């Protein structure tokens, strides 16, 4: 029986070794880029975010999911202070980027926005040449390097170079939807941001273009920290390392319900409400 016993022990120990939790990378170990601390936001009298506290780890993709009106886009736009452009916006709490509070007095949202790039729901290239699209951000921010080199590098990183290298002077609007969105990504990385915010970047694209963008996101995550708002659960499960589920209910608007590694959230969510949402039994 000794052989069997030791085999059993061996089996036990290997199964313990392969227990799922060891497959999940630990978020606690990762270095935090953005730290949202007890953050609330109001549009005039209407509250949009309630005491959100969440840390986004460096060089990972975090997906923000949740039903419409749950505050996920608001949270995204709070991180580069795009919400400031809307009249009557009021905030409480802090958002720290590399430990510095971007809502502290004296912080210029213009500088915040250079460090936190953004890609929008509908591809919105400037009605100018591909080259000018990429160079605009660099020029206004006083880029001193070689322009041609920058254009090529950004387009390569956005996996667009091979498709457009022969007509950089063509209008950005002449590209297909998927190419336009990649151009917008190239444009965003031209100002060397640390973080790229993506607000439903594929919702206006066909499935193949969507997959190309997702592929690109995985690639970019090696250098940038990416936050993506998506309504597409499959997309979140495909691209994201971590998933944050947000929700508004009768009492609280815009709260964080669950946050964890993608594999955990999609196989075994802790919250019943997350479960109901991702399995499509919401309401």
């Amino acid at each position, binding site marked *: 029986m000794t052989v069997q016993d030791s085999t059993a022990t061996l089996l036990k120990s290997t199964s313990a070794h392969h227990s799922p939790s060891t497959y999940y990378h630990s978020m606690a170990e990762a270095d935090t880029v953005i730290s949202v601390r007890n953050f609330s936001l109001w549009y005039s009298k209407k509250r949009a975010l309630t005491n959100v506290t969440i840390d986004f780890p460096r060089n990972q993709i975090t997906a923000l999911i949740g039903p419409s009106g749950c505050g996920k886009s608001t949270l995204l736009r709070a991180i580069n202070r795009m919400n400031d*452009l809307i009249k009557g916006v009021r905030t409480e709490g802090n958002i720290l980027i590399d430990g510095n509070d971007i809502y502290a007095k004296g912080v210029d949202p*213009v500088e915040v926005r250079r460090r936190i*790039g953004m890609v929008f729901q509908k591809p919105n290239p400037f009605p100018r040449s591909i080259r000018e699209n990429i160079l605009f951000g660099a020029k206004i921010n006083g880029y001193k390097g070689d322009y041609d080199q920058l254009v090529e590098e950004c387009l390569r990183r956005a996996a667009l170079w091979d498709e457009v290298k022969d007509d950089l002077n063509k209008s950005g609007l002449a590209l297909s939807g998927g190419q336009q969105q990649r151009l917008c990504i190239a444009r*965003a990385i031209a100002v060397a941001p640390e973080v790229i915010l993506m607000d439903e970047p594929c919702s206006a694209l066909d499935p193949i273009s969507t997959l190309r963008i997702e592929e690109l996101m995985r690639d970019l995550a090696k250098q940038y920290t990416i936050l993506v708002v998506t309504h597409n659960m499959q997309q979140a499960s495909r691209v994201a390392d971590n998933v944050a589920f947000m929700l508004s209910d009768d009492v609280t608007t815009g709260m964080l319900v669950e946050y964890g590694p993608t594999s955990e959230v999609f196989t075994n969510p802790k919250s019943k409400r997350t479960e109901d949402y991702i399995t499509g039994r919401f309401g």
Partner: protein
Amino acid sequence: MVVGQIPAQQAAEFSVDLPRRKAVGWVFIALGLLSILFALFILLLLLYDVVHRGLPYLTWEFLTGFDSRFPSRAGVLAALAGTVYMMGFTILFALPLGIMAAIYLEEYAGDSWFANAVQINISNLASVPSIIYGLLGLQVFVRVMGLNRSVLAGALTMALVILPIIIVASREALRSVPPSIRDASLALGATKWQTIRHHVLPYAVSGIMTGNILAAARAIGESAPLIAIGALTFVPFTPNSPLDLFTVLPIQIFNWTSRPQEAFHDVAAAGIIVLLVVLLILNSLAIFLRWRFRTQF
């Protein structure tokens, strides 16, 4: 038709009657066509009358000669030169003022009570009868500033007339710039002015130019405010400096039509043709500019 596949009891609840529904549509199309034909007919009638009467007088001498007591020797040069001269100054004053005011109101003023008050006033000013501006010009420019009945006084007065139109049209053009373009620029770390300078204005420029040219066209056809400041009706010379006396086409035409000799009415028709051609040129310019900026990319 798939009607046969619809359950009978469900089909019974519909009274499709497609012919009648289509007939209603046709009636509407016919009414619309009639309306436009009516308008065109009146326009053609007017054009025919003017061309028929004015064409015989539309000679080189008419374009290069000054007014005269004799219909056959009357020329339009002084009025044409006065119009061009005055309009040049009008645009010089009104264009930068109007566009800058529009940018301020649309982009910077926000939603304050001040901006709202200005907004309401400008809308009102756009519909004030132009004679009122003429009276204002008479008091301020002609008398207080001592500019006399000069080209400059006329241009300043006319600038006042079209300023509200320019502001309203320019704001409309600025408003039509998609927010996504502004967002894209701001998200790259551009300041508000950089965003306006590099994206909003270039995008809106064709709309702004169109609005401005249409405003200028309106100014060319105006006579009331100039009559009020006392622009002359008999000018046997072209203005040489901004402070010279002058006349403009509408005043000249008005003057000719009010003379007793029947022949002068035909001279007036020739003047109208010249005015129409000037307007046509300006409108074509507006169309060309819009096309030019739109096809840039």
